[in-house]
């Protein structure tokens, strides 16, 4: 693999490399992945409510928990597969050659294993849960290391804001928009081709030139060139009939029922041509319906892309510090509970306070 040493999660100078050096190694690995075209996954792991655990159980328990999580990370991965360090009580681990699916699977394994962890402090059993932010840099996506980290940080923030004990995966913004742009460009190109009724290799019509459909062979005679097989080219019906009559003229004219036979053959031939034409028309109609279905599916997909774009914009807004706020724990207005111990006294006080505020408003309005 990369030849880097095993993950160094030391926040002090006791490890083989300092956290700053480890992060430098991460940058190098990321740059290598961009150059040689393989994905790298970044996991940012934080123990939920670690500060509270510190306050309740002391600094030793905090260190024990962090050590436990590092050990866990090594146990659910191949130890040689990642470079990691501790930054401000968060574990940061970079996994080369790890796709988005792989990173998600790894985060899931880590969460499941963490739920089985148990620690002890002063004879009390503690449990810790994790929040994990996952971000993956795709090959040749021109995503910078900073974008990768920022995306993982944002994902971690989401995971913690949602209550912890979960992972959230985010794409770096630049990669997301590159993918989106490519998909939209492809959709527009296909729609344009279908509108013109041309294949990818056909030259575009000159300005003013009638659409290609109108130049289709007369036997097709449809407003749009159908994608289904067209009616086979051949002589017009009357020509066909004359051709068949000519065959009969070559026969012995004294044969009985010759005229009747000639007419029947011509009629059968004409019916066969009509049937073939009808089938071709039906296939063409079916082709149009297929095209409509295809367009509808593509519109639906574009709508999905727009929805995910909107969600991504919200995420980026949050990452840029545009705060959307934190929800209150109350869905409705509360008020004093009748079961409150000093209910009457408090209600009285609140009423006096309210009336004082009403009086204040009146005084202010009276002045202005």
């Amino acid at each position, binding site marked *: 693999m990369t030849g880097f040493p095993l993950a160094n999660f030391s926040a002090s100078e006791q490890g083989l490399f300092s956290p700053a050096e480890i992060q430098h190694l991460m940058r190098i690995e990321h740059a290598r992945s961009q150059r040689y075209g393989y994905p790298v996954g970044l996991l940012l792991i934080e123990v939920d409510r670690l500060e509270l655990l510190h306050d309740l159980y002391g600094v030793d328990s905090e260190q024990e928990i962090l050590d436990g999580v590092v050990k866990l990370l090594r146990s659910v991965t191949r130890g040689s597969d990642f470079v990691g360090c501790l930054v401000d009580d968060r574990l940061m681990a970079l996994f080369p050659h790890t796709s988005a699916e792989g990173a998600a699977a790894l985060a899931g394994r880590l969460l499941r294993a963490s739920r089985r962890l148990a620690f002890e402090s002063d004879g009390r059993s503690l449990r810790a849960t994790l929040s994990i932010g996952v971000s993956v840099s795709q090959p040749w996506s021109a995503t910078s290391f900073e974008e990768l980290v920022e995306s993982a940080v944002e994902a971690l923030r989401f995971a913690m804001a949602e209550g912890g004990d979960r992972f959230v995966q985010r794409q770096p913004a630049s990669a997301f928009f590159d993918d989106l742009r490519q998909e939209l460009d492809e959709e527009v190109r296909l729609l344009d081709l279908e509108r013109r009724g041309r294949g990818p290799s056909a030259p575009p019509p000159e300005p003013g030139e009638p659409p290609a459909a109108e130049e289709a062979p007369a036997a097709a005679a449809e407003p749009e060139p159908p994608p289904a097989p067209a009616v086979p080219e051949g002589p017009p019906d009357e020509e066909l009939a004359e051709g068949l009559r000519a065959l009969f003229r070559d026969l012995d004219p004294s044969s009985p029922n010759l005229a009747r036979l000639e007419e029947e053959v011509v009629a059968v031939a004409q019916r066969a041509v009509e049937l073939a034409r009808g089938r071709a028309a039906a296939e063409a109609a079916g082709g149009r319906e297929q095209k409509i279905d295809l367009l509808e599916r593509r519109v639906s997909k574009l709508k999905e892309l727009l929805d995910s774009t909107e969600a991504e914009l919200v995420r980026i807004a949050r990452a840029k510090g545009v*705060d*959307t*706020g*934190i*929800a*209150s*724990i*109350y*869905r*409705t*207005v*509360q*008020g*004093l509970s009748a079961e*409150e*111990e*000093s209910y009457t*006294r*408090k209600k*009285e*006080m*609140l*009423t*006096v*306070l*309210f009336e*004082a*505020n*009403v009086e*204040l*408003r009146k*005084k*202010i309005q009276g*002045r202005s």
Partner: protein
Amino acid sequence: MSADQKQESGKDHGVLYMGVDLGTSRTSVSASNGVRETVASFVGYPKDVVSQKLLKKDVLFGDEAVKHRLSLDFYRPLEKGVLKASARDQSYEKNLRAAQHLIGEIIRRAQPRKDELVYAVIGVPAQASINNKEAILDAARETVDSVMLCSEPFAVAYGLDWLEDVLVIDIGAGTVDLCRMHGTMPEDTDQVTLDTAGDSVDEEFAKRIRDKHPDAQFTTQMVKSIKERFSSVADQMEPVIVNLPVKGKPTEFDLTNELREACRSIVPHIVRGLGELIGTFDPEFQDRLKERVLLAGGGSLIKGLDTAIEREMHEILGSGKVVRIEEPIYGGANGALKIAHDMPAEFWEKLK
């Protein structure tokens, strides 16, 4: 609130309650979304285009403003517990604007959602003027749906459910507010405001340093920082060994005695104020009142102050029992939050 009213306002995703404590030195907020924030009550505006470009902000608050104060027009708009707007001079409008920005900032730090109703109770000093109250209401209305003002020491008592036969001492930087609770809403006669508070301790401390060490160079901010780190009235206290420049050279000073005496200087004023409130109370309940004294505010963090006040009360008033609240920084904000939560819905509607 009815469903129709919710739909009208376009906000039907919850109700955020906020309790705000506007203090001379610190402004704090507690909210029902779990957010608790505090910011030093300083506001600064870049002096010129250069500083604006360097700082990348139009207005700075709290410690950030203090850090860059040399590049800022620097304000402390809540001095002496009221907005510095009573004198109709040039600084009136500027202080008013700074106070309004400070209020907007602390509300913003509570991170309210745009799709939620926001109901706020703001604790103001007992003797805030109508001008000040109007300015506070105007500032708050820009970001909340409904707002009420209440007395700060009352908010402290309400938050702790100490509503009867309680004396609250709220020691801030600008004022010490004493409030007598007797089971009903306190009136003006139940409240005393003293000017001798945290800032007075800073001034006394600075004076003593100058008297003892005339060559030491220091600012008010430096003195305040030393006080906040070491303050104590105890005979046995942590030595206050600090470095102050003397003609540019850092020099070590032992300021233990100076700080102790400065901190002790507010005790007699407080006990005198307590005596005033106790002396005018129903004689049958005066002893009970003396035994239920609640110490709150940032000044209550002075080590040993509760014991010192108790001792002085024993000497002057015959008895006394002082209890310091657990969260001096957020006590007022927590109490205001509880008031907001308990206020009936119809009251909030009427004040929108």
